[in-house]
């Protein structure tokens, strides 16, 4: 019988010829990723009690991104602890002030098709957009991975989500994933993997594909995968990866738990409303809702293609004087490239403030958290109560284009009218 992408990766990692959904397997992760907030400072005490020896330091990647730049002394202490820990254990891969971990490991070539990646963050699933099996684990579980190089996983069933057709102007992969989460539900894919497939997915750039896999966990999924193809090879080559890249896809006779079919041509811009990511409505339903802050960034939608889209809409325009618009590029690379292309100038001239790459206000950590009664329109991935600061605040989620359009009007806006009026 054929295997899904998840089954293939977990079969290889567990040293078996074949595994099937439901099997419990002992696997050897190719990458163990930690970030500052849920990494060494929480892992270290237990790690030391159990001997404190890394099984294989070459597989460990640490990224300081949540506490950067530190807003409090406590955050500075965590950051210092993380940096010192990386030095003490002579880690070959430690990054700080470079952006959210999920984007950093993608850009630095740690993510490859077929790899098994475990990280102490729920959005680790983003790496699945390149054809890896990637999922979030807790800090205690990471202790075991660091010491022994292995852990157990249950092979998940897979929900196949097929998007055919062609996205219309003003509609993006963010809208596809919000629509998918709405239909599957906040917990509808718990213990399962989601595999995105179809012609509309294949035509997306790597930047746009990663949005889909990033948000798979918002439907409860263990990971989100996309078949790897020439776009993955192109992307990795552009990042200087020269090794052979083995592409990965599910077998034609693989068994899926269910398959959902969508036509991208019929999709409209979608907005996730407070306080659940599956509370999704077409933009018309909430158009005109006043906002206080607009947030363009995060590991979900702070990449170059996102900043380009926002710049296309904001070029020659001004944001509403009643709001502030924070732009947070998803990595130092994105920041520099956007700068070279003149995108940061366009955004700044429109009245946006460009921050440094960081997890920032997305999780309520630094640089732009909200107060009681404030409303945010954000391109990030989660709108839970209290997520971006005050529990009395509200977070709406949409595409970078919807975010940019909202910045102009100071109210939630349909991006399509600005795409059609594109200034050449």
């Amino acid at each position: 019988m054929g295997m899904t992408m998840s089954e293939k990766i977990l079969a290889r990692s567990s040293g078996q010829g074949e595994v099937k959904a439901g099997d419990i397997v002992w696997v050897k992760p190719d990458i163990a990723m930690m970030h500052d907030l849920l990494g060494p400072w929480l892992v270290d005490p237990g790690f030391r009690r159990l001997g404190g020896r890394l099984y294989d330091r070459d597989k460990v990647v640490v990224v300081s991104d949540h506490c950067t730049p530190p807003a409090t002394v406590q955050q500075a202490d965590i950051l210092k602890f993380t940096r010192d820990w990386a030095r003490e254990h002579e880690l070959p891969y430690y990054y700080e002030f470079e952006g959210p971990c999920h984007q950093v490991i993608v850009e630095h070539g740690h993510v490859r098709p077929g790899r098994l990646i475990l990280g102490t963050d729920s959005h680790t699933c983003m790496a699945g957009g390149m054809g890896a099996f990637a999922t979030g684990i807790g800090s205690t579980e990471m202790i075991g991975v660091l010491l022994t190089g292995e852990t157990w996983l249950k092979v998940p069933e897979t929900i196949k989500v097929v998007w055919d057709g062609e996205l219309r102007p003003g509609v993006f992969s963010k809208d596809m994933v919000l629509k998918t989460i709405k239909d599957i539900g906040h917990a509808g894919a718990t213990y399962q993997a989601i595999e995105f497939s179809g012609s509309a997915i294949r035509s997306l750039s790597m930047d746009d594909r990663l949005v889909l896999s990033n948000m798979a966990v918002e439907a409860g999924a263990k990971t989100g995968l996309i078949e790897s193809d020439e776009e993955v090879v192109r992307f990795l080559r552009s990042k200087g990866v020269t090794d052979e890249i083995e592409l990965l896809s599910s077998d034609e006779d693989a068994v899926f738990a269910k398959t959902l079919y969508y036509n991208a041509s019929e999709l409209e811009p979608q907005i996730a409303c407070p306080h659940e990511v599956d509370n999704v409505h077409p933009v018309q339903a909430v158009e005109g809702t006043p906002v206080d802050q607009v947030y363009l960034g995060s590991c979900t939608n702070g990449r170059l293609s996102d900043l380009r889209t926002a710049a296309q809409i904001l070029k020659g325009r001004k944001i509403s004087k009643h709001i502030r618009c924070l732009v947070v590029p998803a990595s130092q690379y994105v920041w520099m490239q956007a700068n070279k292309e003149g995108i940061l100038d366009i955004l700044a001239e429109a009245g946006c403030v460009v921050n440094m790459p960081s997890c920032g206000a997305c999780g309520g950590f630094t640089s732009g958290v909200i107060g009681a009664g404030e409303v945010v329109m954000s391109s990030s991935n989660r709108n839970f109560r209290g997520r971006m600061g005050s529990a009395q605040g509200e977070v709406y989620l949409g595409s970078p284009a919807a975010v940019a359009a909202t910045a102009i009007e100071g109210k939630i806006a349909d991006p399509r009218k600005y795409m059609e009026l594109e200034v050449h």
Partner: protein
Amino acid sequence: MSSIIRGRVWKYGDNINTDIISPGQYMSLPAEKQAEHAMEAIDPSFSEKVRPGDIIVAGKNFGSGSSRETAQMVLKHLKVGAVAASSFARIFFRNSINVGLPVVEIADTSLIHEGDEIEINLIEGTVWNHTRKEEYRGTKLPEHLVDMVKLGGLEPYLAKKLGISKSQEEVK
């Protein structure tokens, strides 16, 4: 860790996510400070009224969202005895087993009310309601996790596997 837990119930609804249990803005603070803010978005007095051994009973999808173990950390710091829910988010369930926070999945938690005295059998996945004299059958703990739960979590389990005896005493 005992596999039988008895305590008084605090009752919550569906989708109690990790940002509610452990808000991001307090995550860099010491455990005791973080614990003061546990559940505050939906129940501001939780950390003051919860007593050691109390049990949280909730609806579907408890612990959704982040992989943050600070969620388990604050509940353990407040000495919450166990969490029973209709269903758990995957990472939360796994983290709870790993850190020795007792969790049990019972399909219908609507029969349990705030203030009830309940007794959970973790291994069998059953709950006895002392207040209402009712038994609820839940999901039996997967076999490969029984040892880990009996030992009190992943760290003592690893200590045993790696032949380190000292850490077992330090863990609890």
